[in-house]
């Protein structure tokens, strides 16, 4: 007789422990009845499990059931309460939304504040810049007034005449800083105010110019100079008189000085070179660079100094930086008449 396979042994085990299906039960019972080894194994397994049958199912105490059901009811109620709490929370969600809404508003407000701060900062910067420019304009006016006083004092000392130097007709007047014997610079007469002690050199440098604060003037060498040392030391343009000027007196209708002419900002550094300038549209409209092209301080013969936003005075509607009917400049032109105010270079 063949010995039992593992599967048959497992079937016997399952049958004895009570895990065999009805089909397996039928198979095992057949096996037990037909196989001696199976019958022996069944007997041993049966006797092994027999003591376990002595353990009978226990009845659960009623009070434990009641306590369990009671706790379940409490849990369900608390669960219901929790549900109601959630519903209540959902109903009060408007408050949360409101909070969020206010939070959002606060965030937007913060953004506006930041942007505002940036704009204020920028605006403050603009205001500061504007105030600084205004301050320079006023300081510039004070310097021009100081120059007028110097001119007035000079005029008083020299029979009512303004400082002039002899120059032949057609000679250049653009060579600012030229220290030669020839009077080839229109700034030389003004230099006399410095040289003769009527005014200090710093008054001839507009405070709005970039180098105003850094320029140093060797006062000991003033007497050796025939003109301002260079263009940087004279940032104003002075009146060029006509060849037949009737009087050098200081009268209110005269335009004597103004911030640097936009026509002669760039001049040849080599005085041996010739100068030539053709007017164009820009040059006809530009204001002086001293005050960021926003206008220029203009000094009149009576000592008035006005900041004018155009190049035209209210007197004769004359452009103070150009000659009438002249488009090309060689740096030696003169006004044709007293009423053609021409400030140069």
């Amino acid at each position, binding site marked *: 007789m063949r010995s039992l396979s*593992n599967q048959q*042994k*497992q079937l016997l*085990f399952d049958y004895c*422990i*009570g*895990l065999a299906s009805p089909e397996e039960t039928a198979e095992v019972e057949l096996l037990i009845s037909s196989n001696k080894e199976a019958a*022996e*194994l069944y*007997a*041993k*397994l049966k*006797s*092994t*499990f*027999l*003591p*376990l049958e*002595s*353990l*009978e*199912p*226990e*009845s*659960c105490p009623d009070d*434990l*059931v009641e*306590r*369990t*059901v009671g*706790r*379940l*009811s409490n*849990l*369900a*109620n608390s*669960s*219901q309460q929790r549900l109601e709490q959630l519903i209540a929370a959902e109903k009060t969600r408007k408050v949360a939304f409101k909070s969020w809404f206010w939070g959002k508003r606060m965030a937007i407000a913060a953004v506006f504040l930041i942007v505002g701060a940036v704009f204020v900062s920028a605006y403050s910067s603009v205001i500061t810049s504007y105030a600084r420019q205004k301050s320079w304009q006023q300081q510039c006016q004070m310097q021009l007034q100081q120059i007028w006083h110097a001119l007035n004092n000079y005029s008083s000392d020299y029979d009512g005449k303004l400082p002039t130097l002899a120059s032949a007709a057609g000679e250049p007047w653009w060579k600012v800083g030229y220290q030669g014997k020839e009077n080839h610079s229109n700034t030389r007469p003004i230099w006399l105010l410095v040289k003769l002690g009527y005014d200090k050199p710093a008054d001839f440098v507009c405070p709005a110019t970039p180098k105003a604060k850094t320029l140093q003037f060797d006062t000991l060498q003033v007497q050796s100079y025939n003109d301002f040392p260079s263009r940087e030391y004279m940032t104003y343009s002075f009146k060029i008189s006509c060849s037949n000027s009737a009087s050098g007196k200081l009268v209110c209708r005269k335009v004597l000085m103004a911030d640097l002419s936009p026509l002669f900002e760039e001049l040849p550094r080599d005085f041996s070179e010739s100068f030539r300038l053709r007017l164009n549209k820009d040059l006809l409209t530009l204001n002086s660079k001293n005050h960021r092209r926003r206008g220029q301080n203009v000094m009149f013969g009576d000592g008035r100094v006005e900041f004018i936003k155009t190049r035209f005075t209210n007197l004769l509607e004359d452009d103070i930086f150009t000659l009438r009917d002249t488009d090309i400049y060689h740096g030696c032109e003169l006004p044709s008449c007293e009423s053609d105010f021409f400030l140069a270079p």
Partner: protein
Amino acid sequence: MNRILKKPTDAELLDRYAAGDESAFHEIVSRYKNSLYTFLKQFLNRQDMVEDIFQETFLQLFNSRESFDPNRPLRPWLFTIAANKAKDALRKAHRMSAIPIGTISESQEMSFDDVLNTLTSDNTMPYEELERGEISTHVAEIIKNMPENLREILILAYFNKFSYKQMAQILSIPIGTVKSRLHTAVARFAKDWKATTGSRKTE
């Protein structure tokens, strides 16, 4: 008429149970109270722990009602909860030194042939010589002192008749492991029973 007398299924009961129906609480607890109580009593053998785990099992069932699949039978699910809670309670008690170490330690599993050889080596069981009450006390004592994993599977298989597949689900182990562990548990019981009755015979 028949429809009124028809016993509600576990799924129907659980729906009502999940909805907080107190009559469903009573019905489900009553339906499984004895088998669950017996299982816990045999597995834990401590009345205080048995009652706590019994209640917590049904509370857990209620708390996890939304994750329950109505197509699955309720009984294995209930025993899964109970077994896990019972083992957690035993480990907690062990940490507090309330339970002897041997009762929760795991044992090495035996091959099926070794198990059968154990049974066949001596099958002289002095069953008839013992009173039924005395037998049950010895059996309970043997089961109580079995390693946790063997005790657990013997109770589930012999006393509760769960299939191998269900035991595998309850214990979260493969079916093969269920079988080999059950063989080992039976061999361990046979060995301990023989030792107990053998010692009694020599008295």
